[in-house]
């Protein structure tokens, strides 16, 4: 039932769509999937957006080349509870902290932030310290991202810290 992304062997686009996760009957969360900075590759972001939709979430996709200010404004206007950042350009160590800071400045501290794309493991700790709760790379399964969102949702409901402006101790995986 899980959907591999990235360069998993033997995977065809049709498989991706057939293997959709089971079907909840209510809306889970509102999620913004964003492409910050000068990065023109959004196939991954679109696969993620589609699979989160199939997981019962309402997903707003921003389109390419958004500034941190634009992304934070979209999160605000859409009243999203989760922001997923897809970056493959290598600028994650500048753009992601800029977005996290801007979210806190705008008093959007409860927004859950996760990241994906090409983010080398030696950069993970510094992003987690910024409040990013999960980082998914090539080969990550969309079912795992849905599991992360399920846990994040449980933490929100039970009042445990998970937002970008809350105690940054907890991280996925």
């Amino acid at each position, binding site marked *: 039932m899980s959907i591999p992304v990235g360069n998993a062997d033997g995977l065809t686009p049709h498989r991706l769509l057939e293997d*959709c*996760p089971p*079907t*909840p*009957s*209510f*809306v*889970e969360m*509102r999620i913004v999937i964003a492409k910050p900075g000068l990065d023109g590759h959004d196939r991954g972001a679109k696969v993620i*957006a*589609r699979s*989160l*939709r*199939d*997981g*019962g*979430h*309402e*997903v*707003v*996709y*921003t*389109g390419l080349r*958004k*500034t941190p*200010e*634009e992304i934070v*404004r*979209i999160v*605000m*206007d*859409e*009243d999203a*509870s989760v922001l997923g950042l897809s970056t493959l350009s290598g600028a994650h160590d500048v753009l992601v902290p800029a977005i996290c800071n801007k979210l806190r400045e*705008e*008093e*959007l501290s*409860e927004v859950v932030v996760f990241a994906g794309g090409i983010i080398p493991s030696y950069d993970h700790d510094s992003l987690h310290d910024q409040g990013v709760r999960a980082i998914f790379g090539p080969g990550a399964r969309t079912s795992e991202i849905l599991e992360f969102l399920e846990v994040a949702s449980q933490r929100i409901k039970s009042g445990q810290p998970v937002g970008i402006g809350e105690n940054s101790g907890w991280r996925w995986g």
Partner: protein
Amino acid sequence: MAMGLNAPDLLKSALSGNRRDLSRILTSIENGSSFEVGTQDPWTLGVTGPPGVGKSSLIGRLISSWVDRGERVAVLAVDPSSPNSGGALLADRLRMGAIDSGDSVFVRSLATRNHPGGLSSCLSPMIGCLAACGWSRIVIETVGSGQSEIRIVAFADKVLLVDGPDRGDTVQAEKAGIMELADIIAINKSDLPNSQQAADSVRSAIGLSQVPQPPVHLVSAHDGSGVDELLEAIESCSGSHLRGRLRTRERMLSAWDSRLLDHPRLNEVLDAVETGSITLDEAVESLK
């Protein structure tokens, strides 16, 4: 996500210009709360048309022109929810151009969810709220492919129908019943061949009707040609009494639907009809 503030505080904050709290109010309305915001008369435009004709791109152009004139523009962009997962992919805003860079534009994506009677029960309060918060141009965008979309767009005071070249027969648009509701028709993609032909065939189709004909504009969201003229037409359009009546009728039908679908005995009566113990007419009588 309205946490920490109660409804009156949220409303006060939104009315004083807090964008985040306005956004939270819209969520509460979507989730069924009610907000009283006075009787400001909102300026609303419904934009509809088949998938892929360039509604969002054209709205992006209109937004830029409005913002240049000092208006504050709010867009409610409606997309369908997946009937399987209940989720939705909301991607209208990515085609609206430079909307994310200014304080004068507010775009909210809405999924149809599986509300009884569609989104219609929360559209009016949302529009009221946006107008009270100083948004002087409110646009409702929806794909015009079926009855529920017509009902959504009927909540606007003016309706713009967007179509494009090479979409086959205009009978398709007439079948959907949206042409009768349109105050203005725009044929987008005038930079492509056959757009003139599309405009001509729409003109000839609406020419057969007894209703006063809406103007047909050839525009290009791609290169901007015709957009100024379209904007003028939208601004000066006063609507017609007949179309106003049709829209009121659609609003009433959706209110009626919501009432029916919210009825506490709905499932019980459905069961009875399904097993044949009562007729459809008796079922409707008993749910009155």
